[in-house]
């Protein structure tokens, strides 16, 4: 999957040192504030999940729309890079860079309240997949936005709706529609891992076990992880299949 787009996006991410540093430090500051505060564990886990998902969604949609506006995307569309290779490389490298930038914050979120290294390893994998989904959502949002402002609005809307569907804001009643939707929502696994990290038992319909270790968290987030993998696969396939029209929309807007 390493190609010209991967190489250029990777180089760009590290060339803007100030932005890179801000993208590391601001999540660390937020996580530190909440993690070391007396915020109840479910609230802390919700804040962390919202932060990470918004980071991934905005981080995908806004640079794409910026590249539409400055015309670079139109230029790339006229090279021999296929639309699917272009868009998927871009989302993958975006998830990798976002994951790298969020790693210190994730480490703090998991370990500040006693989570172990095994849990952190699991959390990294779940975070990367969640960021991949957020990046794909950001890509689709950008394709339907006509300006950066619209992109920001749609990104927030899409991310918050998916977070809500994933049971971040409240735990749906067992057997309810909300619980069924959560079973197919992408961010429940991230939420469960973060809940485990801050020392609370995940209690939603996707959760199975209590604990503060990697193994128990793996079991706890297994149903959520299944839905995360399912949504990731569906979004990847849809993006692959519809990359041509998506790129045309992006290259011709705003």
């Amino acid at each position, binding site marked *: 999957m390493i190609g*010209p*787009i991967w190489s*250029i996006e990777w180089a*760009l991410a590290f*060339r803007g040192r100030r932005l890179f540093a801000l993208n590391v430090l601001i999540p660390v500051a937020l996580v530190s504030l909440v993690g070391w505060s007396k915020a109840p564990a479910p609230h802390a886990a919700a804040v962390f999940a919202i932060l990470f998902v918004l980071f991934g969604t905005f981080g995908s949609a806004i640079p794409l729309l910026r590249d539409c506006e400055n015309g670079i995307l139109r230029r*790339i569309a*006229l*090279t*021999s890079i296929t639309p699917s290779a272009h868009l998927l490389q871009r989302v993958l490298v975006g998830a990798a860079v976002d994951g790298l930038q969020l790693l210190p914050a994730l480490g703090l979120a998991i370990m500040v309240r006693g989570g172990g290294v095994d849990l952190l390893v699991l959390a990294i994998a779940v975070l990367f997949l969640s960021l991949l989904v957020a990046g794909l959502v950001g890509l689709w949002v950008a394709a339907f936005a006509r300006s950066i402002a619209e992109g920001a609005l749609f990104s927030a809307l899409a991310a918050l709706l998916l977070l809500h569907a994933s049971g971040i804001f409240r735990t749906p009643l067992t057997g309810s529609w909300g619980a069924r939707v959560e079973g197919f929502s992408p961010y429940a696994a991230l939420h469960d891992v973060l809940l485990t990290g801050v020392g609370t038992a995940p209690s939603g319909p996707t959760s199975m076990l209590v604990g503060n270790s990697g193994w128990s968290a793996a079991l706890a987030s297994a149903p959520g992880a299944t839905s995360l993998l399912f949504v990731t696969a569906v979004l990847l396939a849809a993006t692959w299949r519809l990359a041509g029209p998506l790129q045309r929309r992006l290259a011709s807007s705003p």
Partner: protein
Amino acid sequence: MRVVGATGLTYRYGSGRLGIEDIDLEVSPGEIVALIGPNGSGKTTLLRLLSGELAPQSGSIVILGTPGSASPGLRARIGVVHDQTPHFGLLTGRENARFFLAANGAKGPESERELDALIDRMGLGDAADVSVDAYSFGMRRKLALVEALAHRPELLLLDEPFIGLDPKALGALSAVLSERAASGAATLLATNDLGPVAALCSRVAFFHDGKKVADASPAELLANIGEHTIVEVRTGTRQLRFEVERGASELPRICQELVDAGDPPESIQVREPGLAEVFRFLTGVDLEDRL
């Protein structure tokens, strides 16, 4: 094999504005064809259709023997310069150029050498390792030309390629395009800068209101205008231009009339007509007034 074969091409924008209408155009290997016309005459629309950026609403396109708009595979054989030339501003000129080289499927030391040679020829050697954010408009235009040429495309589609170039870079570009033409590459360039066109281009196509109104060699087009002579007179108050049929023999009459009007000439220039005059002769529209 023709490099470009377009038949009956028509494109109308969503706003209802006509882009081009019923355009036929053939370009053979080694030809350099200039598309000339006022703003909005359809030159850029034609280039966008040929590059595959727009799909024709009617008519057909054959590019390098392949029917239909350019696919990603075909694009590796085409070099495009747009009217606008965005780059990755944080990266250096060389990094940008390497990206577009790789994006067009060119790899290996020979491609790298070709790229470095083009960077030097276009006068970007000293700035190649500086970030593009620090580039002037002209430097960005030069870099875009390097990026379009580096993968040795068989077809070049250049929109306003002479804009922003200093005389040295203009000479270098003309030389590179001539060399590429000699090796069989075809070039279509849209321009209103007529200076380099007559010497560089083997054919000129005039566009007006979305239609092609002439397509011939510069010499054939100039022959259209007959025995006209251009007389440009500057007086104390105005600048006048006359197209006269009997050459310099009209000069005494023109001068006398200006003196009689109390506005005697301060300088007089007599020259042969150029492509701008041919365009006016054929369309009744002044090309320069609408630039």
